[in-house]
């Protein structure tokens, strides 16, 4: 599904990603862990198409096609979903308009009929239950006045509406209490299928108790320095990141 080959990316002349290789197949969940500043969020943003980054080397194939020269909206419509680490507040853009436009752009892309307001509201109510989303939130502007936890729930709610093929969760667990974490994880698990895949970027092993990964990768100084099964996350939790740092010459 996704193939990242020797990817280098920099921002304002500073190299952040220094040769990433990663393959994600349908049905898999990959966790990417690593200390602060190792390039986890950069990788997530580069995949979603954020324009602040310059790709200096390498390629990314999604479903066999080059991803990197595509606009963010086209990537989204092809099935890539980024759950933002810091969802943006957009005052004045009502949630319902935003979600309806988003869903219908996806539907148009797939050659499906656009949903009417009534049909959309029905779909929305259905998905709201999944993440325990309250109407008081959907009646507001996008993310406006949402708490940290509500913002993250809102990301998963959007994911549920858009049903992506590849979900990239960028620190969706940070700042969540245990109940919110469970709700978010429940949402993510409910959307799992043999055809979809997820990349879970996280600091902590905690989330991985609820979203069980097939692979855990450790990203350090712009490179994946270790890959193993879910037991690697436990090892990290126990030992911290220092042993990774010392193994890699720091």
């Amino acid at each position: 599904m996704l193939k990242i080959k020797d990817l280098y990316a920099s921002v304002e002349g500073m190299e952040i990603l220094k040769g990433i290789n990663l393959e994600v197949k349908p049905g898999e969940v990959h966790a990417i862990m690593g200390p602060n500043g190792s390039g986890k969020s950069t990788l997530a943003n580069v995949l979603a198409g954020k324009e602040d980054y310059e790709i200096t080397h390498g390629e990314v194939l999604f479903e066999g096609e080059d991803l990197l020269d595509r606009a963010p909206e086209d990537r989204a419509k092809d099935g890539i979903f980024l759950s933002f680490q810091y969802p943006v507040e957009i005052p004045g853009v009502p949630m319902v308009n935003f979600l309806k436009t988003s869903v219908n752009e996806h539907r148009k892309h797939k050659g499906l009929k656009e949903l009417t307001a009534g049909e959309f509201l029905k779909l929305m109510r259905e998905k709201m239950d999944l993440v325990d989303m309250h109407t008081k939130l959907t009646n507001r502007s996008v993310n406006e006045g949402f708490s940290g936890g509500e913002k993250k729930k809102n990301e998963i709610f959007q994911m549920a509406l858009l049903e992506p093929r590849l979900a990239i969760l960028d620190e969706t667990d940070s700042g969540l209490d245990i109940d919110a974490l469970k709700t978010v994880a429940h949402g993510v698990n409910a959307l799992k299928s043999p055809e979809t895949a997820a990349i879970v970027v996280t600091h902590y092993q905690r989330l991985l108790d609820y979203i069980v990964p097939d692979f855990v990768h450790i990203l350090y100084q712009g490179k994946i320095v270790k890959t193993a099964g879910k037991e690697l996350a436990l090892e990290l939790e126990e030992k911290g990141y220092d042993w990774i740092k010392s193994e890699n010459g720091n």
Partner: protein
Amino acid sequence: MSVLVDKADLSLKYTAHYNEVKDELFKNSSDILNAQRNKAFQNFVLQGIPTRKNENYKYTNLNPAFLPDFKFIHTKEEKKANLGEVFRCDVPQLNTNLAMVFNGWFYKNETEKGNLPDGVILDSLESISKEKPELLEKYASLAKVEEDPMVALNTAFAKDGFFLYVPKNVIVESPIQIINLLQDEKATFATQRNFILVEDGAKVQVLLCDHTLNLNQYLSNSVTEIFAGNNADVEFYMLQNQHNKATSIHSVFIDQQRDSRVTSHTASLHGGLIRNNLKFMLNGENAEANMFGMAFMDKNQHVDNFTQVIHASPHCESNQVYKNVLDEKSSGAFSGRIHVVRDAQKTNAFQRNNNLLLTDEANMQTKPQLIIDADDVKCSHGATVGQIDEEALFYLRARGIDEDKARLMMMNAFAHEVVKEIKLEPLRDRIDELVDKRLKGEVARCHDCAYQCDC
């Protein structure tokens, strides 16, 4: 005529014109209007055509707008527009009482009988000032000829416009809509003088729609005086939708008595040069004044909103929100002065001006000004000039919304904060639609307006 014409020469040209048409101006006009003319014209000459040297016109030089050899219409002409057609151009579901001002002259809606409550008068200023002069005792008391040359020039030339009177405790349920049209084969200078008198406890909503019906050069210089009595409630909406060769100068003055509420709403959708002067005087306790404005400019268009609020009584509140979206080489200015006089304690005065610049060439000047002579007041002001938030844009795009659509959503969102303050729901929907069209670069005409010109 050369662009290098000296300001003095231009003033001389207007002096010559005034002397030439003096008889015509005084003829058929009322004593009330005539009494002000000579003094007003002297004041215009003294102050001159406003240029940047005039502190109040620091960001807008009107001199070039005065250069063309204008036709003046000092005597009412035969109706030229098909009024029946014009009167169809209303806001749907907005059951309005319609009237029309054509090149500055008032025309009654003869085709349809309005449903104005008893005692309410919507008529021409010219005829009311002759027939019921007692209703115009306060004429020119707010719009002071010494304070602004455009007001002086308007008062010198003023012969007609609309007059609205709402007697004590009368609630006008349906909004009053004035269609304000400019149309002539020649470059035309239009003068319009309006007067709104709302007595104690009365309530009215007025919508003034400015349109030009062809692409000729126009300069319209309008003055509106509004008097709101004790506990009166007035909403005054101005929809400005003209074209690139039109200059529109509108000075609105409001006197508020105790417990009154007045809201002004200025939506500038289109126009070459727009200057709006707005002066609120809060002359009674517990009065509330709200001023909202939004402008969408492109090409070389220019919009300048100049507001003043005089808190002359204690316990009053004023709120201002002005927003501009400036594209291409357009420019904008906002000057907002809040003056809290001595003893106007417990004043609450707020002001905000936010601007969105879509290009590097667009520019905005913003000048908030607080003059506070009382000591127990709450006043705030703020201004921002910025571009579209790139982070938010990426967020929308990452959800499959293409860049143009995402930008449009954000511009609409920016404007919507002002649009949502429009209390008349059908009008709010209509403005929303017009704003959306305007931002998409389409011509924002009322779709069922008979005049679908592509100005």
